[in-house]
C-alpha cells in the first residue's frame, strides 16, 4: 500500500483500521501525547503508512503515539506514545 495513492495522511483515513482494532469508531476520540502533552482528535494526527505498518505521530512534536503492524493476520498494536486516548 503506497502512501502516495492511499493518501492516508491523517487519522481519518485509518478509521477502518481503528474500528478493527478497537471495535468502535475512534476518529473523534481525543488523544494526549506522552511527548508534549498536546491534545488532539485522532482524525487530526499525522499518519505514515510506509507499507510495513501504520505509524501515528503527534503533529506538534512528531512523537510516535501509535504503531500498527499486521503480520500473518494478526495486528500488533503499540500505544505507548499516548498518555490517554478517550
Amino acid at each position, binding site marked *: *500500500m*503506497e*502512501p*502516495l*495513492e*492511499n*493518501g*492516508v*495522511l*491523517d*487519522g*481519518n*483515513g485509518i*478509521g*477502518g483500521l481503528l*474500528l*478493527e482494532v478497537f*471495535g468502535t*469508531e*475512534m*476518529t*473523534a476520540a481525543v488523544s494526549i501525547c506522552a511527548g508534549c502533552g498536546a491534545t488532539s*482528535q*485522532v*482524525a*487530526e494526527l499525522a499518519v505514515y503508512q510506509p507499507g510495513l505498518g501504520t505509524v501515528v505521530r503527534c503533529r506538534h512534536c512528531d512523537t510516535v503515539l501509535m504503531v500498527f503492524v499486521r503480520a500473518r493476520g494478526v495486528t500488533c498494536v503499540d500505544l505507548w506514545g499516548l498518555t490517554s486516548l478517550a
Partner: protein
Amino acid sequence: MAGTAVRGRLTWQTATVGSVVSETARVRTLSLSVPDWAGHRAGQHVDVRLTAEDGYQAERAYSIASAPGEPLSITVERLDDGEVSPYLTEEARAGDQMEVRGPIGGYFVWDALDGGPLLLLAGGSGIVPLRSMLRHRSRLGSTVPVRLLYSSRSWADVIYRSELDQPADGVTVIHTLTRQQPPGWTGYARRVDQRMISEVAWPVGGGPVGGGPVGAGPLAYACGPTSFVETVASALVAFGYQTRRIRTERFGASGQ
C-alpha cells in the same frame, strides 16, 4: 436520518458496481450495491478492497459521494502511479464486484444538528465528502447558510460541475482555478491564501446564525491535499476561527 448514529460495520461486504459516471477526464463516480448497507452520515468514507485472481488484495479509503438515504456511491480520482484508482476509473464496469467496509468516520461528518453557518473548503477531489454534506442539507430542506470555496486546476477539473452550478438556496459556491481559466473568467485564479479566506469565510462574530449550539459560530470543513488543508486551516485560525470549529481531512496526491 438526522441524529441517528450509524454503526460502522467491521466486516467486509460484497459490493457490486451499478453505474459508472465520468465526472472529469480523471474522475469517475461509481454507484455500489451492497446488500446489507446500513446507511451512512455525510462526510464518511468506505474502505474498498479489490482481490485479484491469485488472491492478491489491495485496499484504499474513498469518501462517500452520495447523501445519507441515497444509493451508495463513491467518487474516485485516477492517480498516475496508483494501484487501485486506475482500476476503479478505467476498468471497473457495471456488474463487477469488490468489497467495502464501513461506513467509517465520526469526526469529519456533518448532521443537521451540527448547524452552521457552514464554510466548506475543497481542494481537488476533497470536494467529495463536502458534496455529500451539501446533498444531505438539500434532502433535509435545511436552511443552514453555506459557503463553499472550491479550488481546482481548471474548469475542466471541477467535479460535479453542473450540480454546483445550480446550488440550493442558501448555498454560495466560490471557485478558484489555479492553473488555467476559461476566457472571460472573473473569479479567483490562484491558490487559496489568507486574503482569499478573509474574503470568503463567514465572519466569526456577528455573522448569520445557522442553528446548532447557540453562539458556536461558523463551522468549517476543509478537505483536500495536505498543503491545501494546512494553508486553509492556518488562515482560518489567523482569521479568528477556533481550532475546534475547523475539521480537516487530508487526501494524498491530488495535485493542485
